């Protein structure tokens, strides 16, 4: 906190924001897990829980442990950690697609609680290690790492084997919702091949809570439903034959690599050999850099697993490999972030998509606005690679943005206008982490 107090920010303002962030986390807590937002997202979401745990550790280390344990408790036997764990007490039609769409109970190896069948970016190993570090004694007392480590290993194994669809050592996401950057322009090309399910065959729920102009179009939504339905009808089997959409994406693979480093630390803490995690991290870093890094662009691009073509779209996902320890192109990524496309020095949160692109839309879901979680990851990466001044500056501006606009889901990166739901879990959690990290 000392560093914070040196800035022109009063103690009362810091304290009030810190308290308000904790009130959001308390309000969204459901006794075993935290919902991202009480109305729009009334269940447990996978990568939301990872980011929420990173903030919750400052409120209660035990509660942060339980957040991750409850998510991993819904892991499938094949190792996948589902994108959504549904709360059976919430009406089936509160969110689409709900439990009756995914029908997880019919899938082999699914847990007793209903879940969706797709996944989200693997931020969990990073989160689990951060949670352990917040209070190692409480973690050891509850056997937290001993409990979550084998599940995290199985989760990474699922992604690096079953999802290694091309065999070249990178995982693929098989649905835009799996990428975390749901509606990103990066997915437009591979998504265009998909025949949408007619809008008459499903009822969207997201439009009850947000303006249509900020959400995906009906046509894209129909494509999302098609992909999810095909996956379900194939019994959640993984192959290029099943997945009409399959993309090797830099964000997920970077989280995997960074996560293997976290698993190595956990293994050491548990008295196990971490070598296999260090070599997995090295392999992933090598594959990521040789296959997805574009030297001319100074950024990582996703690759279409079907065509083998790079999807040359400048999205925030392309900067996310900065979270990988020892990344050989870290300074190039920082350079790109400072350039006109992302304007690290003044845009905040970092835009989800190229500010200089004609189709940049500062209000539409993942097509321009900024999210706190990707900015937090970039902040984490800046610190990792010795860019302390840039990291501190980004942290200060993120804190100010949220203080001005509230704990919104996403923000116009230039004006700071808040969008989407309020009382958003990871915004509160990660701001709390920014406030409390020395």
């Amino acid at each position: 906190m000392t560093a914070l107090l040196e800035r022109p920010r009063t103690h009362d303002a810091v304290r009030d924001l810190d308290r308000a962030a904790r009130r959001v986390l308390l309000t969204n807590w459901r006794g075993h897990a935290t919902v991202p937002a009480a109305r729009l997202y009334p269940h447990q979401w996978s990568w939301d829980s990872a980011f929420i745990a990173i903030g919750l550790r400052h409120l209660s280390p035990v509660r942060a442990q339980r957040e991750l344990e409850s998510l991993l408790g819904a892991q499938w036997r094949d190792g996948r950690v589902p994108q959504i764990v549904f709360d059976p007490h919430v009406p089936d039609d509160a969110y689409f697609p709900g439990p009756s769409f995914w029908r997880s109970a019919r899938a082999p190896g699914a847990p007793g609680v209903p879940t969706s069948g797709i996944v989200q970016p693997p931020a969990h190993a990073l989160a689990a290690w951060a949670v352990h570090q917040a209070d190692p004694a409480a973690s050891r007392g509850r056997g937290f790492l001993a409990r979550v480590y084998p599940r995290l290993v199985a989760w990474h194994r699922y992604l690096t084997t079953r999802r290694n669809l091309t065999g070249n050592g990178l995982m693929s996401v098989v649905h835009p919702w799996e990428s975390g950057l749901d509606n990103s322009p990066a997915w437009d090309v591979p998504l265009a091949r998909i025949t949408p399910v007619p809008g008459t065959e499903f009822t969207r729920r997201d439009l009850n809570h947000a303006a249509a102009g900020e959400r995906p179009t009906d046509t894209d939504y129909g494509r999302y439903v098609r992909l999810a339905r095909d996956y379900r009808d194939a019994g959640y089997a993984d192959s290029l034959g099943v997945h009409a959409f399959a993309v090797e994406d830099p964000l997920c693979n970077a989280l995997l690599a960074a996560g293997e480093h976290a698993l190595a630390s956990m293994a050491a803490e548990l008295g196990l050999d971490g070598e296999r995690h260090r070599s997995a991290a090295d392999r992933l870093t090598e594959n990521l850099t040789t296959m997805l890094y574009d030297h001319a662009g100074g950024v990582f691009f996703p690759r279409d697993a079907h065509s083998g073509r790079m999807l040359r779209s400048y999205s925030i996902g392309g900067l996310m490999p900065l979270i990988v320890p020892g990344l050989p192109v870290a300074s190039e990524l920082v350079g790109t972030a400072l350039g006109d496309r992302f304007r690290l020095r003044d845009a905040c949160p970092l835009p989800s998509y190229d500010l200089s692109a004609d189709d940049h839309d500062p209000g539409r879901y993942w097509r321009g606005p900024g999210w706190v979680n990707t900015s937090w990851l970039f902040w984490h990466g800046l610190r990792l690679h010795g860019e302390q001044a840039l990291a501190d500056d980004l942290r200060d501006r993120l804190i100010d943005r949220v203080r001005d606009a509230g704990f919104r889901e996403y923000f116009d990166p230039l004006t700071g206008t808040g969008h989407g739901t309020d009382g958003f879990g990871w915004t509160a959690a990660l701001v709390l982490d920014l406030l409390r990290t020395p």
Partner: protein
Amino acid sequence: MIRISCQEQLLPGRTLQEKYDVARDAGFDGIELRGHGGFRFRDRLPELRRAARDGVPMPSVCVDMPHFFAAFDPELRRDALEQMKSQLSVIAEIGGRGAVACTPASWGMFSRRLPPFEPPRSEAEDRAVLLDGLAELGEHAARVGAILALEPLNRYEDHMVNRLEQAVELIEAAGLTSVRVLADTYHMNIEEDEPTSALVRAAAHLGHVQVSDSNRLQPGAGHLDWAALLSTLDAVGYEGYLAVECRLRGEPAVAIASIPGFLRRHDARVPA
């Protein structure tokens, strides 16, 4: 810094001054008094005034009687109301700004979980008695400048007010800001679905907090999530005392001395 007080009977020493010396050395900030019936609390005024003059902080009194303001028996009820008014007056004089007198609706009078299961008074009659009592005590509290804190007890100790939301509902119906909710972590652990969620919902009416662990022993001896509880109290802006009311495991002086350090380890406040 959170402020922590200790109930007087837990502290060694012949006088309040001696007790406070022990308490302060252990890291406590004040003493919670116990208010006996028969106007014995009022009769302690000379002693209490001397202690206050000597700088002993005594921000609250917790009632210690065999009958309470919502007793079935009208005479006992009347006596409890008079005792509580007297205790409010005394604590207002010696407790300083925001002084608190605590009472449950009743204690040990009836439990719906124990035979004969059905109380002799209907719920509607209970409610009328509670509202009448809160109105009378709340008006007196406002007059003397103190807070009456209504304490929900667990189901085995009282059949009328078990959860914070029940206390809040009565307080809102009474409509007096001089009546607030007392949150006791032990009772909450038994009665609330989620203690921290209950605190968030009751925040606007929260007037006092008593702490003991899940097993009624000193904080740290049970399984409550103190980090979550104390962070919640800070997040909702609670600025009163945490009054230690518990039984002790181990050598009493050692057990008592462990409490402030344990609680402050979980202090979630943003440092000044």
